[in-house]
């Protein structure tokens, strides 16, 4: 339970720091209902379970009535994690030591999954890259979640196929029939038209929570990020060291990244999808809760 243990520890610290009881009432239910709550009676039709017949009411009402319950619906939280090779790269952490984007995506997915498991909901996983996509069954145990997390971790390597969120989402749309809370964890820098289409399609079926993970700045000076040589994981080529630490290049790159992120946010807002950019594990907790908060408000609107 290494992944979950990490998350739990972090959460405890976080909860103590911020507000106790943060874990309660995390996300809005898909269908309003209170478990075994009795709702109403209706006339018996063929096929109803005989056990559901309310004999007393039937006696009073001179017709065969059956009790109707709002069946306790366990929500399904579907973690949709891009495990393309770009997710094995480094994450931007400012001046701190670099963290793998993989660790961060496992953390974010684990955090959402942990909240769901704590809530008694089912957690499922869709993951993949451009070459292959897979789905894991839903279950509601921490052990299962742990397995899902290790699956994500193992699938995200430098030798994976290139990341392809559109393909993964198409796969999700194809194989997932039920309504879920779809938590997408990827590292998109912009929303293409295809991505917008498939997101629109999925938003009709699911509640979408979109978490993107930032990239390391390859133009940062050698000592501030890492002393190791940089390697472009998408192109499979080294990033020459002389690109690092150049003032003008940093400025231009920062401007580009900033404008891309703003464009991404604008586009997702247009699509009505709540989105958070996650930078490190500490910020990830805040980001996930902020995401859930925004999602809840969005529902009530």
């Amino acid at each position, binding site marked *: 339970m290494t992944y979950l243990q990490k998350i739990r520890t972090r959460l405890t610290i976080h909860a103590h720091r911020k507000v106790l009881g943060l874990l309660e009432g995390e996300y809005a239910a898909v269908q309003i209902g209170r478990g075994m709550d009795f709702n109403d009676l209706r006339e018996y039709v063929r096929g109803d379970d005989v056990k559901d017949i309310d004999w007393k009411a039937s006696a009073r009402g001179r017709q065969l009535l059956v009790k109707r319950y709002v069946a306790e619906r366990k929500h399904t939280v579907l973690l949709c994690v891009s495990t393309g*090779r*770009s*997710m*094995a*790269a*480094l994450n931007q952490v400012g001046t701190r030591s*670099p963290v793998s*984007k993989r660790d961060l995506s496992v953390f974010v997915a684990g955090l959402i999954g942990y909240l769901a498991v704590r809530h008694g909901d089912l957690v499922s996983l869709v993951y993949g890259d451009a070459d292959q996509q897979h789905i894991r069954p839903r279950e509601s145990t921490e052990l299962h979640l742990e397995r899902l997390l290790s699956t994500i971790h193992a699938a995200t390597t*430098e030798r994976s196929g290139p*990341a392809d969120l559109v393909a993964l989402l198409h796969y999700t749309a194809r194989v997932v029939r039920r309504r879920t809370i779809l938590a997408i964890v990827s*590292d998109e*820098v912009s929303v293409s038209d295809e991505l917008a289409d498939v997101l629109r399609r999925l938003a009709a079926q699911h509640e979408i929570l979109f978490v993107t993970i930032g*990239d*390391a700045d*390859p*133009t940062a*000076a050698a000592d*501030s*990020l*890492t002393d*190791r*040589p*940089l*390697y*472009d*994981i*998408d*192109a499979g080529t*080294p*990033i*020459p060291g*002389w*690109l690092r*630490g*150049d*003032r*003008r*290049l*940093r400025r*231009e*790159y920062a401007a*580009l*990244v900033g404008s*891309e992120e703003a464009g991404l946010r604008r586009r997702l807002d247009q699509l009505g999808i709540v989105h958070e950019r996650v930078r490190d594990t500490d910020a990830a907790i805040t980001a996930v809760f902020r995401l859930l908060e925004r999602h809840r408000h969005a529902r009530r609107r």
Partner: protein
Amino acid sequence: MAPLTLPLAADDRHLHWPWLVVALAVLVVVLMVVWAIGWSRRTPASAAYVAHAARLRSLPRFRALVRRRVVLGVALTLTALVACTGAVILAGRIQETKRIPQSESSRDIMLCLDSSGSMITIDYEVLKQFEQIVAGLKGDRVGLTIWSGTAVTVFPLTDDYDFVQQQLRAAEAAFATGDTFSDAYDKFTEGTIVNQKVQSQVGDGLASCAQRFDRSSQHRSRSIVLATDNQPYGRGVFTFDQAAAYTKSRHIVVHGIAAPTTSARPLALAEFKRDVLLTGGTFSLLGADGSVPTVVDSIERTEARRIQKPPIIQVVDEPHLGTVVVGIGVGLLVVVWLVEGLLFLKDRDPA
């Protein structure tokens, strides 16, 4: 005499170790290939991966940096190659086979001066004239022998003209006083009189001078400038006639300079003239003024035979080319590095 043509300066440049040049050139090429391959398929063993770095390529600054890098890289590679080329050339040892033609003037001139007291002023004049001649000589060898009862070599035949001039001046200084009782004269002529009863032996003096010539196997123009008054005292080993015959047998020409006082003794004068002319030389009886122009003329007329020697073949390392190329390469390399460093410092992020 037929002009001797020598194969002049047939310089031949070649490499001493051509195989080393080939080996090093191959090594450089192999290293470059290995480096290029290693560079292109460098395994990212300790690399830090970054995603979405392709965005960099759209930045104008990136293109500027790439252009600069290409220029610097090409410059660095070229200068390094130039330096390598120079080093390879140096390693191969360019050598020059120099054929130094040994064409020597082959005049040997022996000044043969009667150092007896009566000849002092004449000797002085002859030495003075001779000093001027020496200044214009090239490749010829001169020697000085003085004699009276016996002959003393002041200096042997040599072409070290500085030394010759120095010795001639010393001789002049000894004779300059015109006084036989001066210390300088005594010291200079020391050893010429062994037996007071035997002095001014022309025959012995001439024969001794004739024996001073070396390199008898070479065809050289050999001449003796004999200055005397032909007034022997006592009895020597050679008579003048015998000495002249001996000299002639050794193909040595004698130019005679007779002191003005000789004319007082017609027999001696006639003997002197006869013997000198016998060797094929010139004879001049000096006037009372003691001038010696004819001697100079006759010496200058002597044919300088040129002798042919096998050229000296010297194999000399010629490191100049390699050194210059290495210097240029390393210098340019340093310049490019400096430029690179300055550009780096200029554009470095201050953070």
